[in-house]
């Protein structure tokens, strides 16, 4: 798992340090207030937004090669969305108080508005779109299945049992409208997470108008890479044929998305260097010292440059399909490591230097406890388990899977 790798590397870096901090730190800066759980939160919401944007490409922009993973992307987005706010609740404690956000909305606090952003995205976008997309199947399953399953699907259909051509047409139409609303909503969801960091003007590592945009594109990158991994793994375990056209399209999109994301991050970096504000020297020291492994090695080299080059070769070079699949898989895995490091570098990096700009501290990760490594592993495994259950309830694979793959290959070849 990407986070374990990064964490291990960090543990090694920390052990290698002869002391915890250097230079001058204010007393309240020794310990980091935002730990591993806050790293996981933007990572998970990024996966949600990315997976949804990928699904919308098939629906709105008619990228037919992505047909085999359309439903899988929606379910993945839902599975990760359910877990996304939990790291925040675990970090804050008193999870029951989160409902206060709805009862007494504070319109001037970006953090307090999260409840509404989340509720909108979950209920109006994801659940509605999945419901409209699956309704026809749900009605069919409610007729075919027996016992509890029958009643379960009947309840899930909400009594809308009509499968007349008009009804199905209406489902498709609504699905499309919701996707169109969903795209800006997905941008809002993850742009919002970036906005939270970007608007903290007292912190020179975070305070940048580019942060929401960089977050958004890294979300798209991580979402595409996630779907590539999930598609390959699920197909392998089901002993089914994989659609090379779909994989190639995913690889291509991932390649373009990484390029844009990397360019934006480079732009941010050059902009900071050129501006050379008073914080630049401590930030440079932090990058070359505390964040060297997670930023230079994990994020830039392993998580961006290596996957970018290998994806470029695999997609546009003449490689046999078997080798291509392996390259895609490894590249997507590395991208996950890279994006997790990006979140790590933003969240942890922003707290490693003193506001006096004269010292650096060290993040000491807990293993147990609410904010520890094991809790984080739990939050990262939970969406996979939820996705497993969701695919059992709402199988995203067409009954005539081979025919769909054949059609997809044909359409793509014809183009």
């Amino acid at each position, binding site marked *: 798992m990407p986070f374990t790798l990064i964490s291990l590397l960090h543990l090694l870096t920390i052990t290698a340090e002869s002391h915890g901090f250097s230079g001058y730190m204010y*007393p309240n800066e020794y310990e980091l207030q935002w730990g591993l759980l806050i790293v996981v939160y933007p990572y998970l919401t990024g996966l949600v937004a990315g997976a949804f944007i990928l699904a919308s490409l098939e629906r709105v922009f008619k990228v037919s090669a992505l047909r085999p993973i359309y439903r899988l992307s929606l379910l993945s987005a839902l599975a990760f969305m359910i877990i996304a706010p939990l790291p925040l609740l675990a970090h804050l404690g008193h999870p029951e108080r989160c409902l206060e956000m709805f*009862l007494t909305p504070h319109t*001037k606090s970006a953090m307090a508005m999260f409840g509404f952003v989340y509720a909108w995205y979950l209920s109006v976008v994801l659940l509605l779109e999945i419901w409209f997309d699956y*309704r026809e199947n749900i009605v069919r399953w409610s007729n075919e299945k027996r016992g509890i399953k029958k009643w379960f699907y009947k309840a899930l259909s909400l009594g809308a049992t*009509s499968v007349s051509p008009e009804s199905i047409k209406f489902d498709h139409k*609504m699905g499309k409208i919701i996707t169109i609303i969903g795209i800006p909503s997905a941008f809002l969801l993850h742009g919002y997470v970036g906005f939270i960091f970007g608007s903290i003007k007292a912190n020179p590592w975070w305070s940048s108008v580019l942060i929401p945009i960089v977050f958004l594109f890294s979300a798209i990158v991580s979402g595409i890479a996630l779907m590539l991994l999930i598609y390959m793994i699920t197909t392998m375990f089901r002993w089914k044929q994989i659609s090379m056209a779909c994989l190639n399209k995913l690889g291509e999109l991932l390649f373009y998305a990484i390029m844009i994301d990397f360019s934006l991050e480079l732009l941010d970096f050059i902009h900071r260097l050129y501006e050379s504000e008073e914080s630049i020297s401590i930030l440079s020291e932090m990058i070359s010292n505390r964040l060297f492994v997670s930023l230079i090695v994990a994020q830039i080299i392993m998580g961006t440059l290596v996957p970018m080059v290998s994806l470029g070769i695999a997609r546009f070079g003449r490689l046999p399909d078997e080798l291509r699949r392996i390259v895609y898989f490894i590249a997507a895995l590395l991208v996950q490591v890279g994006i997790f490091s990006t979140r790590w570098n933003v969240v942890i990096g922003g707290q490693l230097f003193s506001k006096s700009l004269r010292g650096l501290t060290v993040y000491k990760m807990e293993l147990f406890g609410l904010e520890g490594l094991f809790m984080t592993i739990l939050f990262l495994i939970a969406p996979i388990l939820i996705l497993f259950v969701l695919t059992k309830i709402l199988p995203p694979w067409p009954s005539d899977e081979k025919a769909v793959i054949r059609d997809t290959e044909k359409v793509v070849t014809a183009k």
Partner: protein
Amino acid sequence: MKLSRIPQQVIPLTIIFALAIVALVAARQMLVPESFGKYGHYRADAVEEVASHDISYAGIQVCNDCHDDIVEVKQESYHRGLSCEVCHGPANNHAEAPDEYTPGAPRGRGYCPLCHGYNPSRPVGFPQILPKMHNPGKACMTCHNPHAPTLPHAPEECSACHREIASTKMVSHHTTVDCRTCHTVPKDHWSDPRAVHAEKPTDRSTCGQCHATGADSPKIIPRIDIETHGGRYLCWDCHYPHHPEATL
């Protein structure tokens, strides 16, 4: 519009969303306290509730009214900025009934290090000690009067004020080198450190005392040609004198 012309899917969804909105409105009616929002984004009654709590702290003015002899001493000391209740604890009871209640006073060794225990983020010159090494077993009050904590005589060791440097030097090869080997310390620096500064070395000869090729020092000490080593740089441009093994 006829009800039959509305698509079937719309009806249950409308009901669910309507129920959710009604539930939210009802929950707001029932759960949001009446006084919420009167002054700002909080429960206005909370202000009165907090105001109705028993007062614990009397405040420095009340202490000063009776204990003017101590105020006089404290006013001349480095503790002049501290409020009495920082060390003595909440003393409103004592202010209201001086004979009935006596405020506590920390007399052991645990309390003073809260401010004076070594912590590298504290400013240079702020008196800091390592409690385990600083006169172990003795209560702070044995030597220091808390109302005028400066000792009648100057500190005996540089580490009393320069604790961070002393701690760094302690783990380096320079641990046995006395500060005065390299620094010239005027006598008045001990009693008035901010007005009279200790002097730092200005040329290579200071390091050369031990590290020059012909220096009269133990053979184990690394030697260099003091004239040519490092070109035009001074020794401390590359070596941190308090921890020369560390890389800059």
